[in-house]
């Protein structure tokens, strides 16, 4: 008796569990924050250009924002089969600017004498600054996904702010300051990544099966979050149209007849049901509708 053929990756997380899109958003942002932290460790001396702690803070924040933004948008593009490097560049710019802007506002607020002349005041100023940075960073990066989901910018703002505030407290803990700073960076990055990647309002997700019997590989994983009333091109293989909670798969314009849904060749558009396998361009895809979005 021969072994049964396999369809990889059938075990996608059920509703309520962490979708890989969200997990990848957190992982990517966290990695960007870690990279920024490593780069920041090289800044041990002030110099002609970075001649004050204010400038140093802004520089490190720019690094942090650029790292989180570059990794987050880059991996999002990779996950959705789009061109990666333009998104990385965009993420670096958006993230760097947003974090620097948050830092500039925070530094201005920190000049208030009440926040400047005591240990508690300094802590408040630090929490406010990190919160602002996280909030603006989340808002800026979340705005990139606004076309997909209008609430994403607010999610980024909220989670970024909360993550930043907690990160500031962690950074101020007694003990190994360097490690606390690293954790603070990771916390802020994770919070921003989570806020920008969470899919509360999504109808479901479509993911590409890897086609091989391999352990989960996040880098090779391709996944699209599906929202209502949208047209989503999937890797030039086919197009998914969503309207009124119904999904319709149709072949890509230049690939007629190359689409199979549930084992049947699709010549024109065909409604796609939950958990059906779509085969296109030699790859198989699967859609999972979230329970809260079930019709």
């Amino acid at each position, binding site marked *: 008796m021969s072994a049964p053929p*396999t*369809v*990889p*990756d*059938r*075990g*996608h997380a*059920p509703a309520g569990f962490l979708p890989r899109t969200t*997990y990848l958003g957190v992982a990517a942002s*966290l*990695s960007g924050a*870690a990279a920024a*932290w*490593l780069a920041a*460790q090289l*800044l*041990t001396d*002030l110099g002609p250009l970075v001649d004050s*702690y204010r400038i*140093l*803070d802004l*520089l*490190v*924040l720019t690094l*942090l924002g650029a790292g989180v933004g570059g990794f987050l948008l880059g991996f999002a593009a990779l996950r959705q089969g789009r061109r990666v490097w333009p998104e990385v560049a965009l993420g670096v710019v958006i993230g760097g600017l947003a974090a620097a802007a948050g*830092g500039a506002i925070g*530094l201005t607020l920190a000049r*208030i004498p009440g926040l*400047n*002349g*005591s*240990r508690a005041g300094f*802590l408040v100023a630090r929490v406010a*600054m990190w919160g602002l940075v996280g909030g603006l960073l989340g808002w800026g990066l979340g705005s990139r996904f606004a076309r997909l989901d209008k609430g994403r910018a607010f999610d980024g703002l909220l989670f970024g702010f909360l993550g930043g505030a907690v990160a*500031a407290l962690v*950074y101020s*803990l*007694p003990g190994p*300051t*360097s*490690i606390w*700073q*690293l954790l603070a960076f990771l916390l802020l990055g994770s919070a921003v990544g989570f806020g920008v990647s969470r899919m509360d309002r999504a109808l479901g997700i479509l993911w590409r099966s*890897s086609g*091989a*019997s*391999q352990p*989960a590989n*996040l880098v090779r994983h391709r996944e699209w979050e599906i929202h209502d009333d949208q047209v989503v091109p999937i890797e030039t293989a086919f197009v998914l149209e969503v309207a009124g909670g119904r999904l319709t798969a149709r072949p890509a314009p230049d690939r007629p007849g190359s689409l199979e849904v*549930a*084992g049947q060749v699709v010549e024109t558009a065909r409604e796609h*049901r*939950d958990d*059906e*396998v779509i085969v296109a361009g030699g790859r198989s895809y699967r859609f999972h*509708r*979230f*329970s809260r979005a*079930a*019709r």
Partner: protein
Amino acid sequence: MIGVGLAFAVLQAVGGAQPMTLVRCAAGSNAPCGSIAFRLGGAATRQLVGLDSAALADGWRASVLGATDLIGVGRVATAGADYRVLVVLDVSGSMKGAKIGAARLVLRQFLGALDSVSARSLRVAIAPFGSIDVAGRIEDAEFSPPDSARVRIGQLPAPSRENTALYSAAALGAQRLAAEIEQSARGATGLLVIITDGDNDVAVGDDPDLLTGADGLAEAAGTVSASGVWTGIVGIGSLSRRALETLAGDRGFVYSVPANPSAFELIDPLTRLRRVLLDRWIVQVPLGSLGRVELGRQWGVLAVDLVGGGVPTPVGAAVWRPPFVALPAFERAASPAFDAGDDLAEAGGASVLTVLLPIAFVILILVQVWVVLPRVLWPAASAPIDPVTLGSPIVATGPLQSHREAPPRKPTEVTANKGRRG
């Protein structure tokens, strides 16, 4: 919007304490030192003048962020300061002979020792006094750089048969010095040095209106005190110490030397008085166990005491404000003037552990996030094909059915490891 801007401007104008700067204790060293600049107050100046050199070298103690009893190294800072010194030298008849010779010699040494104070910021005047033309001589005293003043020592008049208008000389000298300080744009520090060998003694034939008696002493002391200058009185021989101390006031010092002083005996008080001019200091404090990185944790205050005779006097404090996000960075290496010593220069080097541990931590976290956790969350990438999926569409009946569901059992399959009872 304008209101908010104005509020910020006002808040900034309120100002704050002087900041502590973080420097490398020595060039090439990773040992952090806190650097603080301050101007000594009255009590600290009094203590400084009273210390001997050895005690001063070891006299700076500091605390910051829970680290206490840190030993600092102090250096005089003269930049931005102005100093005015008026030496009023008794040339009454009793100063004849060895006394005036020793006084002139010591004054030359004293002015030479002022080299440590920037010549550009120091002006010195020397005025003789007896009991004739006391006001005129003091008024005519010209403030000039120390080198010029040393030349004028040789031009001082020889002692003559005059009495000692000590009270008037002190009062007039203080007024003259205060007037000179007023002309200084940077609020100079003033030192009035009086060298005399006699108590106040005026008689008929001397200048009119010279101060004398208890009232004269009180008036002179009041004038000296009101001038705000530091006063040092060097009494040669047996003089009324009480009168001299009254005259010197709160900001004054009185020294007594033998009737026929050696140059050494006379130079000691002047050397101490010179320290009045050393009122601006930069103290550099090796932060010991507090590394550069640890300083990033919290706001703190670096407090510096001057310890002399076992009594610490607070002399300066600086606020340490770390960056809000970044780790603190060195602002510069310490000036070579601060001899940190070889031990300190080598101390504080980043150990392999310090550098590698956080990097290893980063790698560990990334491996967890990218490799380990995904395998836990999504353990199997393969599972038997569900023939329903390939064969016919699934009718969606609500939330996703778990992919871990077992396929339908066939009638021949054993469904339990244990046999059914009975």
